[in-house]
Each structure stands twice: as structure tokens, then as C-alpha cells.
């Protein structure tokens, strides 16, 4: 064995970027016990989604299969799996990390583009109707405070997402 020369292996070419990403750090701890799958309310009724399988595919380097399929978007973010995982794999966060990659590669369901532009434009995911805003005094509710949309735009552009959501808006 020669020192200083690392051979590149295809197997790790996907688990490494996942592992180095926020949320994906714990993926290689997985030993495929299936606690996550049997904890998952979605997996039990939809064979398309199985967290154990998604992690296995990711660890084996099946990037395309993980990122381009719908499966990764079927997680209901209930954190049951993460709570019970004996290896403390942060499974829900790993799924977020995978979704983040999929989003960057433009493989996300359309609704996420709507979320992104709503956030960028209003600082909120759900717009507040003028009707409801006017009705607030009737319900004995105080007027709404202004939203910090400018700060939010600064955050998104610092991360490099500002342009992206504008692109989506253009669509």
C-alpha cells in the first residue's frame, strides 16, 4: 500500500457528500436493522417509501435512484424513526439533506417551488387574506405586526438561494 494516494471508490461517491452536508452527518452509522421502517407510518401503507431502503441506496451510491425518485418526498417528517434509531442516525434530517440535494438538482415536487417563492415574496408560507386581516378586530385580535421579509431575503441570498427562488418565480 502506498501512502498519500487515495483511490476513489464509486461506492462512497454519494455517501460522502451526504455525510458532509448539514443533516446528513450520521448516515454511515446505519446498520440496516429496520427499526426506522417499522416505525414509519408511511412505509407501512406505501411500499414506495422505506427509510431503511433510502439509506441503503444512498450508502451504495445509487444517487440517481434516490434523488430523482418521488420516494424521498414521501417522508411525513414525524421523527418516529429518528427517535427510535439505535444508531442515532438522524434519519429525518438525512432525508432533508437528500431532499436538499434533490432540490438543487431540480427534482423536487412543484409545491416546493411555490413554498420557496412564497417565502421570498411574503416572508410567509401561507398568505393572509385581506378579508381575514380586516376581520381580526371582530374576533378581538390585535392587528398583525409587519413581517421581516427583507431580513429573510438577505439570509436567502447569503446562502445563495435568492437567485434560485427568483428563477422559480419566473417559471
Amino acid at each position, binding site marked *: 500500500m502506498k*501512502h*498519500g494516494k487515495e483511490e476513489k471508490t464509486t461506492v462512497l461517491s454519494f455517501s460522502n457528500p451526504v455525510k458532509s452536508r448539514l443533516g446528513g452527518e450520521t448516515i454511515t*452509522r446505519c*446498520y*440496516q*436493522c*429496520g*427499526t*426506522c*421502517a*417499522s*416505525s414509519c407510518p408511511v*412505509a*407501512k401503507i406505501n*411500499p414506495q417509501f*422505506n427509510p*431503511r*431502503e433510502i439509506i441503503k441506496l444512498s450508502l451504495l451510491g445509487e444517487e440517481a435512484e434516490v434523488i430523482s425518485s418521488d420516494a424521498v418526498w414521501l417522508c411525513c417528517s414525524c421523527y*418516529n424513526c429518528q427517535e*427510535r434509531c*439505535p*444508531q*442515532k442516525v438522524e434519519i429525518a434530517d438525512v432525508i432533508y439533506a437528500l431532499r436538499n440535494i434533490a432540490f438543487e438538482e431540480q427534482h423536487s415536487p412543484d409545491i416546493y417551488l411555490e413554498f420557496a417563492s412564497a417565502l421570498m415574496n411574503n416572508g410567509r408560507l401561507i398568505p393572509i387574506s385581506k378579508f381575514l386581516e380586516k376581520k381580526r378586530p371582530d374576533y378581538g385580535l390585535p392587528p398583525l405586526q409587519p413581517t421581516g421579509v427583507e431580513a429573510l431575503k438577505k439570509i436567502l441570498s447569503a446562502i445563495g438561494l435568492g437567485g434560485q427562488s427568483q428563477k422559480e418565480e419566473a417559471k
Partner: protein
Amino acid sequence: MEEVEVGVFLSDCGKQLSKILDFNALTNYVEKISNVTLVKRDSEFWRGEGLQTIVDAVTSGKINRIVVAESLPKLSEVNIVQAVENAGLNPYLVEVIDLKDHCAWPHRETPREATEKAKAMLVAAIERAKLLEPIEKLEFPALKSALVIGGGIAGMQAAVDLADLGFKVNLVEKAPFLGGLAARAGRFFPTDDCAICIQSPASDVKTITHTSRKCVYRSGFSEIPNLNILTNSKVTDVEGGPGNYKVTIEKRPRYVNELKCVRCDLCTPVCPVEVPDEYNAKLKTRKAIYMNIPNVHPPVYVIDDSVCKFRGCAKCVEACPTDAIELDQKSEQVTLNVGSIIVATGFQEFDSSIIKEYHYGDYSDIITHLELARMIDGFGPTGSVIIRPSNRKPAKKIVMIQCVGSRDRRWNAYCSGICCMISLKHAMLVKTAYPNADVTICYIDIRTTGREHERYYERAREMGIKFVKGRPTEILRDPKTNKLIVDVEDALLKRFLELEADLVVLASAMMPAEGTGELAEILGLELDEDGFFKEYNAKLRPTETKLRGIYLCGGATFPKDAPTTSLHAHSAAMKAAKFLTTGKIVKDQRTAIINEEYCGDCEFCPVTCPYGAISLVPTTEEHFVAQVSDLLCEGCGVCVGTCPLNAIELRHSRPNQMLVQMKALMSVNGTSKPLVLAICCSECGHTAVDSSGMAMMQYPANVRVMKVPCTGILQVHQFLEAFKAGAQGVMVVACKSDGCHYEVGSQKAETKVELARTLLKEYGIEPERLVMFGMVFIEGDKFAEAAHVMTERLAKLGPLQMKGEA
């Protein structure tokens, strides 16, 4: 003072080396060095005629310091030193170096440079030899007796071994009866026979014809000469050191006189106090006066003082025909003096109720394997019938779950190692007794790595035991039927199963026995990150500790099956016996010495010493001074490196010895390359240099090796001294930081190197001229490569320039 006269003996290894090194030049060079009075050259000096030359020179009184250049110095040194000692010279006045593997072989392509390096090596050895001082042999008396802590199979086996060998043995068990976990486990894999047979003590020594295994309850265990058994007892304090420990034991009252009790069992029927029997998985009750099972050891009743009404009742006292019951017994302190201690405290089952989703403790039909073992045991609470505790009806559908609390980062990250086999054993025992029982094992990985163990697994499959690869997420209970439901994914079929069960058995993790941490504190032993006792070296010294005289065996170091526990126990007993057998400890005074005038009682050294060899003792009312125990000191020098006031030195590696060596190694270059000083620890570092030479790996001759006992000895100013002496770069080569032969030396050196690098900047020296490397013997290639890299780096940096020379 006697004039120093150095004899130098140069071996050319049957002229092999003279093809590379110019021995005439070396001889001429050495002869001119002051105080060298004799120079000899031969093909070998470590045996035969060559060795006789050295002996003759010593006996004739011509020389009183010896430098030998010999190949394989780690082997030859032993012979040479022994011969020199026999000839009447102190063996520590000898310096052996290796011109073959450290010079000729690795520099064979540059013979001229190699010869120049050999000169430097020789002058360094000679200058060091001149400063060597005689070191005395010390003798400490040791008691020929031992304490064994823990009366499970490990402790019992070790105790019997030592007692058979004639040592006085004290066996201390905290429970009222011997046997530990083993006795509760009932049967053992892979033989499926009863857990508690041990080698009969009498068989080894007394009755030669009797070589069969013996049940501990039939073995006359308590009658073994030299064996003192203390049950219901706990070690509370240990003072002293190897060979002479003073042990304090708290012996809790049994309330039954061991000599009078005849086991007539007239006491239990009259006892009005009935409590759930924990020993038997609470599947039955016991009285306040009780024995675990009929065949316990010692065969004497005990009173549970947490529930007994004592004088308010005293019915047992009336019933006892031999007046054995003594309700007035009090706890007593027993003091023992022993030469050695064996720790055999074992392990315990993890409390699975912490894993809420499994509902152990909530639903009574969820039990652990230790509890199932009680049901399987004929002496157990159900008489070998497997029942559902909730309704006491037979359990027909059984699901076992592996890795409950082990391989689980939330609780115990390690694999307990024995649970797979325990589950297979219990599944098969159940299936043998009830062929129609439906037994399923849910597993993550089945681990059957021992002899016969894989065959065991195969037999389980043959018997129709079902295996599901998957760790269940939850155990539910159907409120209507009271059946348990195990919710699991069969990962191989990718199918979700809801396994119905009458009884769920958890393979709970095995963790360090209760009180392990406390005992470690009392003994001064370290625990590993999982809380088990840490052995000296897992590979070669698995039953020794870093403290001479204290040994470990059985589950105290990690969960073990019975065969491994037995091996371990015999090993610990052997090590203890070797230590105890002569009744004395003989040890060279290769130890640290304190300069009391400089000592500032700062507590750095006592805290840092990995062997607890340094203590602070009062001199005047306000002043303390560090004191080294020659018995405990291992001579590593970590204290030297730690002392901020230079108040400590090693007798065999004084600062002035290191300094002359350093200067001498840098005094001759002979190459066009920048000089590098490689300071190597005597363990992994120096042997890695050996192995690169043995394999004839080539590296440049400007790299010069200096050996120190452990790199932990190094002080920051020594790096600066090396640069001042002419080194353009310094390599520190040591054991890897987690594999240091002196526990903490490499880590200490790393800190020192870091600190020195910052300091170097102050002097205008590039910090990358000082680098630390961790390697092991077989990584000779790593050393050769590091030597190349360092040389190239220094060539690029150009000559060293010190700014504002201090």
C-alpha cells in the same frame, strides 16, 4: 573518581557491513575520541568468541564503559548485558547500537554518506556511555497470598487455581451465595449442560486419578485448604502496593451461623414474611430467611434484613434446632493483607425498562433471557415449564428480540457478544421441550463466532426456529386478548410483520456489574469507555492491568461466555502466581528521581503518572515534595516531561545524556542534505526504524535516530536544543497516541510538540521543521517515507536561521 575508559566493539556481521561501511575509517575515527581505550572489530560480539572478547576486557579491568555496534540489538543486548554483569560490571554501563538496520542497510546506495552517519552514531553512543551511571537492583518483599473479588465462575476458577498452587486465597462475594450470573443462567452453550461445574480443586493436586469435571456444589469447594470464602462482603478500601496490599472488607451479617446451620429447613416454613423472589424472576415468592435454590454455596440460610421483622417475630430462632440463627449479628470490618488482587466482578443485565417502546416492566409477559433461564432451570420457579407470567398458562408463541440496549448508541454502543448464542440456546431448549412451540428470533445480525457455534445456529434452523432480520420498533399489547404484538420489518422480504406472542424474551445488553466504577476508584484502575475494567493490553496482556500485582478476569473486562471466562480466569491466576511465587519483587532502579530542592509541589507529576507511582509527602508544615515509588515507577519519564521546574530526571536517561547524544549525532554530516534528528521512543518508534532497515527501505543518511524511553519524557526546550545543536528539522517518532506503551506518553508529547511549534515561530523558525509521527513496528515504510518527506521539506525551506538568538 574512577577514570572513564570506554571499550568500543564493532561488528561487521561477517563482513556484510564492510561492503558498505568503511570499517577502517570508523576504527580510526573512534580511536581518536577521548576516553576510548579499546577498539575491537569482529564478525559478531553477542555470543561465542566475540562476546568472550568483551568479557575478557571487563575482567581485566581495561574498560568500565562498553559500546557495542551489533545487529539485532534488541536480541543481542540481552546476552551482552548478562555477560557483562556476570563479569562484574554494572549492566547499565553498556550502550548497544545497530549499524546494520539503522545505517548500512537503509543507506546502502550511498556508502560514503552511510560511513559518515556511522561515525556520528558511534560518537553519540560513546559520549552517552561516558555519562552512564550504574543502576542498582532492588528487592521488595511480597506476601504469598491473594484476594479474589467476585464469586462467579471467573472468581471461583481463579481462586481454586491459586489455592491449588499453595497460595492463601481470600474470595470475596457481595451476594450471600456464590455462583454469580452463571448459577442463575442454568445451562450453558455450546454444551447445554449445567452452568456451574468447575474443575474440581482436589483433582489437580490431591487425587491424581480424579480428572472429571465436578459440580461446584459437590466439589467440597469450601473445604479447599488455603481458601477463605467471604460472602455478603464488599471491598471498601485498599491501601499499599504490589506485594503488600492492606484490604478492608465490610462483611454484612448473615444472621445465620455458618458452622451451626444444618440446612434442615425448619426455619422457612415458620417465617411469616413473604416477598417476590428477584432471583427467580419474581415468578415465585421467598421468605425473609431463604436460600436462592436448594443447592447453593455456601449451604447456609441467610436473612434478608430489608424485610425481616427480627425481634418482633423471631419465629425462626425458636424453630432452629441447632441455635444457628443469630439475630444480633452486626456488620464487621475484616482486614486482609495480600500480595496480589484479582478482579472478577463480572457483568449484569441491562435494565430494559428504559427502552419504553418495548414495555419491559409494563407488560409482565415481556421478560429477559436471564428470567427465561430461571423458567428453564429445573430448580427454577416453574419447574422447567415455560409460562406466560400474566396468567401462568403455557407460552406457545415466543418471540425473542436481539440487541436490546446493546449495539444501541443511546445506551450501550457495543455488541454484548454472547446474546445471540444465549437466544439460540434458549430457543432450542424450549423447542426441545415443546416441539410445537412457535419460536421466532428477531435479529440485526446473528453472531456465532466461536467453536461449534455456527453448527449451533444451523441446528436451530433445523429445529424450525424462525428468524426475522429486523429490529422491532415496538411491542404492543392487544387490550382485548392480552396477546403481545411485535411490530417489525422483515428487512430481507421488505415486509411488515405483526408477530403475535404469548411471551416476548429480550436479549438485554450485558453491562459492567454494579459497583464497577466504585471498585475501580478504590483500586486505582481505569475503565474503558463502556465502563468495563481496562486491561493492560488486549492482545498480549489481556488479564493484566497497568498496575503490577492487580489482575482482571471474566466479564469484568467485557461480557464473556463460560469457555472464555474460564480461560481468562486461569490466565489471571497464572499471572498472579508468577508474581507471587518468589515472595519478592526484583526490579532495577530504572526509575525517576526527584530533586527535592527544585520541587514546587505543584501536583503535576502525581496526577500525570500513569502508574500512580508519585505521591506528595510533607517535608515541613507548609511544604510538600514529590516522592517516587521505585516499586511502582515504570521508568517512562512522562513525569520528567511534565515537571515545569526540571525537578525530575530518569536515572537511565538524564538530560545531559540526551544532550551529548543529540550534539554528537549532529556533529558529522557527510551529506549535502539538511540534518534531521529523529527522536524515537524505545517502543513503536525505534522498532519502526528497525523494520524499515530490515526491509532495506532506503532513506537519506542525513536522518539521525536518537532513542528515548518514551516521547513523554521530552520537554519543550529540548526541541530548541536540537535546533541549536545543528538539526535543520526534528521528527518525533512515537507509538500512536492511542497505543502508547506507557499509556499517555504519546499524547503528552503531541501537546509538547504543538507548544514548541508555537514557540519556534517566536524564534523565527518555521514550525513545520518540527513534526510528530505515530507509527507501529510494521510501519517501517511509514518511517522511510516520513524521512524522505522531511528531508525534501527542509531542502525547500533552506537553511535554518534563528532570529534574535536567545
